[in-house]
């Protein structure tokens, strides 16, 4: 048995990080969750088109490897703060899609009991302190959570997800500085999808790579291809190890792309069809990971199909759960503004 596993290990020695680090079952679970993120957002989009849900939403389709890779080394005790484009982070951190759909549908069974909607989904039990409607709003909060971890010696690590747009907010700079000064167990993850709404990073940001800004705060700045799961996961592992060892924060720039527009109002006038098509056809993170797993013999076509089928089932059931759930009672409109006290 020991020899057999050694043989397996040897056969993986030259493969990328995650294939050495994780079992085939774990990696299949990753593929499952990447599909779950994709289909969740497609399901939400379709429900919106059909008028079943209102408001707006910011889809992360095309960024699934980034969310999954970063969350890979995290435990349920570790915490994240997320963004307006946060469905992927939420699922990657362990949320149930049925309760996410229920939140979209504004139902009491939703994660925020229908009070938050797409932009505020949180799952505190799994360590997700919440998406955030304010660009950069979650970054200082993550630093505060990391300060708690350090003060209470919980060993927790906190990840703050944000986009390229947030790197020009003052909150980003203030938060990174404090995290470095106090050597806090926090990882700053900039998912650079190229555009803050319509404004490209080239037009908005003085540095070529956002990771370069880490130098200003004396922390490692790491650039990864955000569409390659293994690259993201490897960088996250290193940063988590560093944070847990008390060596302080890391800034990871995960370069990726959103296939969809910024939100439902986006007419996509700031980028070309060819550019979008190129990312969708040649650099789709799910296709890349799926092909890699198949090439390395971690999964076969039948295995892929069964994952897709299982995801489709979970999504359909999630939407049904949301539809069947109860709406909040209007008489409860003032609930949760303040903590109920005896």
């Amino acid at each position, binding site marked *: 048995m020991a020899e057999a596993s050694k043989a397996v290990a040897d056969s993986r020695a030259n493969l990328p990080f995650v294939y050495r680090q994780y079992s085939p079952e774990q990696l299949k679970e990753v593929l499952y969750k990447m599909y779950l993120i994709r289909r969740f957002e497609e399901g939400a989009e379709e429900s919106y088109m059909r008028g079943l849900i209102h408001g707006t939403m910011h889809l992360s389709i095309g960024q699934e490897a980034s969310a999954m890779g970063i969350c890979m080394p995290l435990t349920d005790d570790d*915490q994240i*703060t997320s963004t307006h484009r946060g469905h992927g982070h939420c699922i990657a951190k362990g949320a149930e899609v049925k309760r996410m759909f229920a939140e979209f549908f504004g139902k009491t069974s*939703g*994660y*925020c*009991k*229908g*009070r*938050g909607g797409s932009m*505020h989904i*949180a799952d*505190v039990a799994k360590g997700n*302190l*919440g998406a*955030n*409607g*304010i660009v950069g*709003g979650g*970054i*200082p*909060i*993550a*630093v*505060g*959570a*990391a*300060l*708690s*971890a350090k*003060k*209470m010696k919980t060993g927790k690590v906190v990840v703050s997800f944000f986009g390229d747009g947030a790197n020009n907010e*003052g*909150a980003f*700079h*203030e*938060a990174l*500085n*404090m995290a470095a*000064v106090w050597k806090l167990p926090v990882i700053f993850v900039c998912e650079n999808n190229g555009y803050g709404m319509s404004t490209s990073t080239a037009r908005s940001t003085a540095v070529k790579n956002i990771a370069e800004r880490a130098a200003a705060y004396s922390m490692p700045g790491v650039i990864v291809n955000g569409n390659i799961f293994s690259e993201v996961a490897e960088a996250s592992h290193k940063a988590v190890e560093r944070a847990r060892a008390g060596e302080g924060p890391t800034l990871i720039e995960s370069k990726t792309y959103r296939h969809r527009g910024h939100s439902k109002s986006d007419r996509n006038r700031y980028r070309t069809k060819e550019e979008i098509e190129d990312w969708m056809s040649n650099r789709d993170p799910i296709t890349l990971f799926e092909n890699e797993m198949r090439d390395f013999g971690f999964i076969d076509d039948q295995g892929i199909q069964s994952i897709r089928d299982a995801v489709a089932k979970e999504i359909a059931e999630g939407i049904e759960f949301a539809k069947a759930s109860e709406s909040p009672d209007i008489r409860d409109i003032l*609930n*949760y*503004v*303040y*903590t109920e*006290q005896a």
Partner: protein
Amino acid sequence: MDTTPRELSYAQAIQEAMAIAMEADERVFLMGEDIGVYGGAFQVTGDLVERFGTDRVMDTPISELGGAGVAVGAAVTGMRPIFEFQFSDFATLGMEQIVNQAAKMRYMLGGEVSVPVVMRFPAGSGTGAAAQHSQSLEAWLGHVPGLKVIQPATPYDAKGMLLAAVADPDPVMIFEHKLLYKMKGPVPEGHYTVPIGKADIRREGRDLTIVATSIMVHKALEAAAALEAEGIDIEVIDLRSIRPMDKQTIIDSVKKTSRLMCVYEAVKTLGIGAEVSAMIAESDAFDFLDAPIVRLGGAETPIPYNPDLEKATVPQVPGIIAAARDLAKGAR
């Protein structure tokens, strides 16, 4: 035996409250700019760093937005931070975290978290610090559901309300008038709380109700004492908490006196006086009014530097006396 109650200054009372809170609960810690060895811009934290160390009396960089956010993040994850803004004017720099995050997080998350953060704001004019270091912005924050906003006017209340704030599961914003820091008053030793959301009748009277906040409570009391000689009997209510507001105490008082005047330092329009007046106009006390409601508030201007101009910008005792005398005409 000396039975004179112990006296502390308003600043000492706050400092003692923070020390008691930190002694009692290791989750409580202080954050702010220059609150460590410097002792705080107004010496409110004083020497606490010597007693509790730099981990619990944390100097922050000059980063109000980030610092407020760190306090919010620490609060939702199990700590009990008390964050000092060096001047209440700097709330403008931290507004995002106060208004969009601290105030709304519990609601947005459907009650899954509480945000037990306390923020302290040295406020008000009278120090010659001019327009950017003298404002009274409490009504800004009072407008935001999810926050609690208080203005203790005495050393006794400063200590008791701060201890109530630390024990409160929700974000509590404390506006402390800088001119009160040196005022002395009786302060019991040990732990006690003064409830948030309860006004205090500082002086009972029959002819006229003055609802005042913070330093204006003392000016109103001075005016009331002066008018006593003229036979005018004024009731002075110290509002203490502007969110939640103790409406009933005001309503009951107005029903008794039939005359209402609001005195507050913040800019007069769209402020606490408007809220109190409108609340009374909407209540069954309206029918008891025998005269139009009077508001005395700050002038519609930034706080000027020149000391005479600065004084003229906010209500002073002679003005309160004149306005109260006028309003009380025909009473009884």
